[in-house]
């Protein structure tokens, strides 16, 4: 295939990928979008195969490699529970990172096949691009592995910090930049591998100090990195499809990181520097917990309140997913609807462990997406709603974020649940949420605490609704 023709076809691949993302602007068009994405990918693979000189022995290995990967990928895609999506995505990012590293190493050792020059005498521009690609790829690889382990629970989610951490990272960062620069004058294998090792190390080091609940930002950030790595390789291989895709993915991940940071009212730098959530709960908040009276109720009270309400807003949080309560919740909502109660769901941007996670979990439990609302769209409705049912959420409902400038969560956008006539708060105990802040909502007159496991409580309410 001529180079010009393949370039044009790669451009079409890029366009199909843009359409794939565009399709996600609404659930109706999204499936079509995914179809465009798949078409683009098949096109890209076919063009590449037609552009290289195929020789038989390697073709067999190639087909074996593609089949093994395809089968593993297919099995994972069908087996994975929706609650495990964050670690799946983190794991997938690590594969993109590693693939980028392998391609770059391969290009380094046989640059003639890639049209980049000869071994250890690669064109200057190409070696810089290759250095950037391999470095970002390596960072994505180890960073994603740590994120995966934290999310999967293979490693403690609490931040790991040590003295001089930031200095070490800064030194490594400078080393990486210098090594990329040094590759221009000296393309020796030592320099190249030192660059890879330093990048692998920094990927590991930048993720370990970040706490488990900051993972939505981390996954989005690594999503972005995997895109920049792909773009770096795209520049090296002078391939339009890779450059376009890398840019799309890179900016997508960056936007998602921004949205997640905004949802927590944290600056990106603050998340990256890590260590949040390590400060133990200050003693005076603990005292307050003991002093203030709290109203608590049981499933029967809750069922009575909701049955007689005309509107209910459900506020689900990650705790709901942990307790696997989404199906019971949906059953409860069905019963309520039969009683002519208007039910909607309110989702906070950081309600799950990754962007949009809660929406997927609700969709899996057959909750129609047009009953699910984002924070900005529903926040004004709490004032004229009878009951808010808070299940597995905590910090995102805390009114302190609006009132107390001294609070660590001050300024974070929260759901105005306290404006409802009554609030039902399902929680196992009075313990504060992730941010370590006592939730003022517990002590309000219109709050009824339901101390139980989210799933069990919801099931009990369902029984009492009959």
């Amino acid at each position, binding site marked *: 295939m001529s180079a010009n023709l393949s370039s044009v076809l790669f451009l079409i691949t890029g366009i199909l990928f843009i359409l794939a993302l565009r399709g996600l602007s609404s*659930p109706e068009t999204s499936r079509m979008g995914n179809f465009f994405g798949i078409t683009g990918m098949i096109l890209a693979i076919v063009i590449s195969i037609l552009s290289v000189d195929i020789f038989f022995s390697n073709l067999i290995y190639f087909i074996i490699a593609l089949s093994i990967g395809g089968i593993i*990928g297919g099995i994972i895609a069908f087996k994975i529970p929706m609650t495990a999506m964050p670690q799946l995505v983190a794991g997938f990012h690590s594969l993109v990172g590693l693939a980028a590293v392998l391609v770059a190493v391969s290009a380094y050792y046989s640059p003639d096949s890639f049209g980049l020059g000869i071994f250890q005498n690669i064109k200057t521009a190409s070696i810089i691009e290759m250095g950037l690609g391999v470095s970002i790829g390596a960072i994505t690889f180890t960073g994603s592995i740590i994120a995966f382990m934290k999310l999967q629970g293979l490693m403690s989610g609490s931040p790991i910090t040590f003295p001089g951490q930031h200095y070490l990272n800064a030194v490594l960062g400078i080393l990486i930049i210098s090594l990329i620069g040094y590759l221009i004058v000296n393309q020796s294998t030592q320099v190249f591998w030192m660059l890879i090792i330093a990048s692998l190390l920094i990927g590991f080091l930048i993720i370990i100090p970040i706490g488990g609940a900051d993972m939505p930002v981390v996954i989005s950030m690594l999503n972005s990195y995997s895109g920049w790595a792909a773009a770096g390789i795209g520049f090296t291989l002078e391939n339009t499809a890779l450059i376009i895709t890398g*840019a799309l993915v890179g900016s997508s991940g960056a936007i998602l990181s921004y949205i997640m940071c905004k949802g927590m009212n944290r600056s990106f730098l603050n998340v990256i520097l890590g260590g949040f959530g390590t400060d133990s709960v200050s003693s005076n908040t603990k005292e307050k917990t003991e002093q203030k009276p709290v109203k608590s109720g049981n499933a029967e009270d809750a069922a009575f309140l909701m049955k007689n309400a005309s509107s209910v807003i459900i506020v689900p949080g990650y705790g709901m997913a942990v307790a696997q309560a989404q199906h019971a919740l949906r059953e409860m909502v069905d019963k309520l609807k039969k009683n002519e109660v208007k039910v909607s769901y309110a989702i906070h941007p950081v309600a799950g462990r990754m962007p949009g996670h809660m929406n997927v979990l609700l969709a899996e439990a057959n909750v129609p997406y047009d009953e699910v609302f984002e924070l900005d769209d529903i926040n004004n409705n709490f004032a004229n709603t009878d009951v808010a049912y808070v299940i597995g959420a905590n910090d995102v409902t805390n009114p302190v974020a609006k009132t107390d400038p001294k609070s660590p969560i001050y300024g974070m956008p929260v759901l105005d649940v306290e404006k409802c006539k009554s609030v039902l708060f399902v929680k196992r105990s009075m313990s504060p949420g992730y941010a370590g802040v006592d939730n003022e909502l517990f002590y309000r007159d219109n709050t009824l605490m339901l101390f139980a496991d989210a799933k069990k409580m919801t099931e009990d309410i369902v029984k009492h609704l009959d």
Partner: protein
Amino acid sequence: MEIDPFIFRLSIFILSIFIGYFVVWSVTPSLHTPLMSVTNAISSVIIVGAIIASFSSIDGNSISFSNILGFIAVTLAAINIFGGFLVTQRMLQMYKKKEKKNK
């Protein structure tokens, strides 16, 4: 003076970042998880590089170090491509509209 082809690629790159920026902002927040899985799948277009690596040959038929790296990269990218698109499809199938009240 001739323009370096690198500048053209850089132009494509920068313009694509802008396209990405506007397209992604128009993605509905409820589909952010499928967005992540699909971007993950499409970034595996890096398989293009893996294919070149798999078939790069220096001295004819023997399998080189670069080929082996290529095969591994093809496997990894394939996991991502199949896994990413299929899991996205699976998620998107779940998004349903409210049924008409006719139970």
